């Protein structure tokens, strides 16, 4: 049953920023050595010798924001196909080579970038890098595999519609961001993926899977100098320049546009999924920490205001959270919850009231201190695993942020003041100027929606 539970919340989790923190100054990264290959690939080797494992993560600027117009989902499809045939090896041979040594390799495409993630026993570092080098540098994109994978992705997009939470989160971002390259789901739509071909995949690969701008992190029970020699041998031959016009257009803030209400009509729903939010700022915002702390007061942890009012005091939901998603060229803010159809309006009103309150009233010193301690106390858990460390290294480097961000994290959280919090709440958390998206049984709940504006109703089977 664990998978079901995973599906139910995956969409919500996707929006939550990393929660983190320890006593100020207590966080220390293991030693890390940085190299740059002649082709521009940045390489970081971090020695972390707790368990005999090694994580290898390669970040490439090939996220869905780079999808060619009309080919939404091409980045994701290309990523999935890397392991389906490379350097003359078939998909079966690649899977066999990885798995016979207990290894795992997956390609994960997001909006800004894609990562190729490997995890191996440390003694298998050279074999792991050899396989990863082949799939990244020399994918073959066999036609049969391309066709099969297209069919699978289309079927998965259809299947996701069975999950109200996933549907709500996908359609919330799509409705919120309009025609921006961040708007469409990473895996695209049924028609866009259905129209893809091997040629389009190959073209995308050649434009976007290039060493310039790519970042490779190796973290684990390895010797840095020896590991670098292997990396160099496998990745030195990677060629290619980043294609022109690779920058993602800035996401314009939507101010003073009023409220819009979108309803996805799922006629058998007995529970309503609720998303409320607006566009927000990029990852490089100077307000990163004030936003992190203010959001945590509103919707992080079990004692956040949303959790307290919606779940604890009223028993309206099993979960209520909020979160900022900061991307390279902009971001978005959302409140995420769900409740039985009968209490839909009550839950929306309670959520909006809490957003309004955090704008109108300054957070007390006590509540702010509690929240800061929560964030900093948990931060060490965010750097425990090799995969966590590799993720910090590649993501920070992609955004141009030095790695000492991690060690300074807790001190920066501690610096946030009540004035900072109120200022960013007023700038980034909206009440009358927002999108409300629901996945619900429209006939059953429409009488509750008065005063929220005219609903744009989309039948579930029209969602592609």
């Amino acid at each position, binding site marked *: 049953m664990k998978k079901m539970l995973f599906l139910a919340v995956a969409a919500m*989790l996707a929006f939550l920023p990393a929660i983190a923190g320890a006593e100020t100054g207590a966080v220390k990264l293991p030693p890390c050595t940085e190299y740059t290959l002649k082709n521009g690939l940045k390489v970081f080797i971090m020695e972390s010798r707790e368990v005999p*494992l090694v994580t290898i993560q390669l970040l490439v600027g090939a996220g869905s924001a780079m999808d060619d117009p009309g080919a939404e989902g091409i980045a994701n499809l290309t990523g999935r196909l890397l392991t389906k045939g490379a350097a003359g090896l078939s998909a079966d041979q690649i899977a066999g080579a990885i798995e016979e040594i*207990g290894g795992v390799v997956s390609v994960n495409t997001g909006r800004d970038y894609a990562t190729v993630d490997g995890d191996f026993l440390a003694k298998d570092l050279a074999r792991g890098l050899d396989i990863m080098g082949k799939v990244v540098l020399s994918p073959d994109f066999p036609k049969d595999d391309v066709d099969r994978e297209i069919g699978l992705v289309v079927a998965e997009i259809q*299947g996701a519609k069975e999950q109200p939470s996933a549907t709500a989160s996908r359609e919330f971002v799509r409705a919120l961001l309009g025609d921006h390259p961040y708007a469409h789901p990473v895996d695209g739509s049924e028609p866009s993926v259905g129209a893809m071909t091997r040629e389009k995949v190959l073209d995308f690969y050649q434009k976007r899977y290039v060493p310039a701008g790519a970042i490779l992190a190796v973290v684990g029970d390895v010797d840095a100098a020896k590991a670098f020699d292997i990396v160099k041998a496998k990745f030195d031959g990677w060629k290619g320049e980043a294609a022109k016009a690779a920058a993602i257009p800035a996401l314009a803030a939507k101010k003073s546009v009023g409220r819009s209400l979108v309803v996805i009509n799922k006629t058998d729903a007995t529970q309503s999924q609720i998303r409320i939010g607006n566009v927000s700022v990029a990852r490089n915002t100077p307000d990163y920490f004030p936003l992190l702390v203010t959001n945590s007061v509103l919707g992080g942890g079990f004692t956040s205001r949303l959790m307290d009012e919606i779940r604890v005091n009223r*028993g309206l*939901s099993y979960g209520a959270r909020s979160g900022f998603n900061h991307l390279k060229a902009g971001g978005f803010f959302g409140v995420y919850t769900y409740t039985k159809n009968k209490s839909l309006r009550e839950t929306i009103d309670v959520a909006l009231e809490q957003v309004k309150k955090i704008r109108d009233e300054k957070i007390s010193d006590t509540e702010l201190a509690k929240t800061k301690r929560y964030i900093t*106390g948990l931060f060490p858990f965010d*750097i425990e695993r090799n995969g966590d460390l590799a993720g910090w290294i590649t993501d920070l480097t992609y955004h141009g942020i030095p790695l000492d961000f991690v060690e300074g994290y807790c001190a920066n959280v501690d610096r946030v003041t009540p004035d900072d919090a109120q200022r960013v709440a007023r700038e980034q958390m909206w009440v009358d100027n927002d999108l409300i998206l629901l996945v619900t049984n429209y006939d059953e709940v429409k009488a509750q929606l008065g005063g929220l504006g005219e609903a744009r109703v989309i039948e579930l089977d029209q969602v592609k």
Partner: protein
Amino acid sequence: MHVLKSRAARGVVALGLFVLVSVPLAHASAPSAAETKAAPAKLDATVETLKNGLKVILMEDHSVPVVSRWTFYRVGSENERPGITGISHFIEHMMFNGAAKYGPKEFDRILESNGGYSNAFTSEDMTAYYEDFASDVLELCIDLDSDRMKSLALDPKFVVSEMGVVKEERRLSVDNSVEGAMYEELGALAYKAHPYGWPVIGWMSDLEKITREDAVNYWKTYYAPNNAILIIVGDFETKKALALVHKYYDSVPSQAPPERVRTVEPEQPGERRAEVHKPAEMPQILVGYHIPEVTSNDIYALDILQYVLSEGESSRLYKKLVRDLGIAVYAGANASWNIAPALFIFDVKARPDKTAAECETAVYGILADIAANGITPAELAKAQNQVSANFYRSMQTVNGKARKIGTYEIYFGDFNEILKVRDRYRAVTADDVKRVANTYFAPKNRSVVTLVPEA
């Protein structure tokens, strides 16, 4: 079947780890120095049982300045009866809603304001609670947990509001989930006698009727130190931690040991089938075969078989159903670890233009092939390497280590089995795998749930 319910959506992250715990250990192809370091002959932990029966296991790990503290109770949905199904999981929720010293809302408020995170989960066999926190708040966490073990309030107002929360959890994970509804149907179909047949989250009609008195009685029966295990792993000094454990837990009174489940599921006399009609995009099947309890020696061969069938894209199910035949989007298998005999479950989602029947036939074809011809030496070696690597992955965090210790205590009565189990995986042969395939994958031993998508 590992039907786990946790306290909140974020707990699901932890459930992912639990999957690793449930299929643990095995064998690295060539033991290296590094492997010896991570897996010594004996786990370096201190064990003490208090006078009230609470078993305490402490293991130092100073790699990061954090601690993970767990309490496992030997209670789960198997201990329920019709009329109060879901009460184990409901008590799990109520354990965060106030006790004698720390009233309603205090547990989370105090813990989070001290930089800690807590969650919990309930399965058929156990209920477990944990906090992850910075090293300097260990005493506070011990105080908070011992308070609710000693004197849970079950405040009437919170009984009502928390039941609302649990019903929303049920609506989310079962009533509005195709997958959840399928698993619930499979349980009800496969078990005619044993309590594993009802859902851990409970039937909705029982959630409507459970009273505060039911909860008080249930809590008194099962939430006693002699029915619990306390585990602390992380950055602390054992001597000091043990003194704190005595200070706070010694005064918790023990109770009469609860009765264990008596019912044994009778042998299934023939194939069972059920349908779930629901609006859905694609056909889907669940097939469950009865297999023995976790302490059976056959479990290790069944786990190896699970890896051969469904771990990764070189597995038999993926290669046949997803790649070669192109009839499925997803094809998985899971051998349950449970105290009583449970199920080996196949879970297949068909492509929208294919049928459940095609998928079912393909699964049976693979099982017949293994029953007739066994698995290859390469498949056996691969599975053993995968199990070994997954073991290390589950031991990367203090939380993962404590969780593994607790689950092994529940299943085997001794966490040192963690290392003995390694040898049992190494001892599995291709013949063993062939034998268990013949023993358990007989048509009359299976229950099949088919999703019939409605428009």
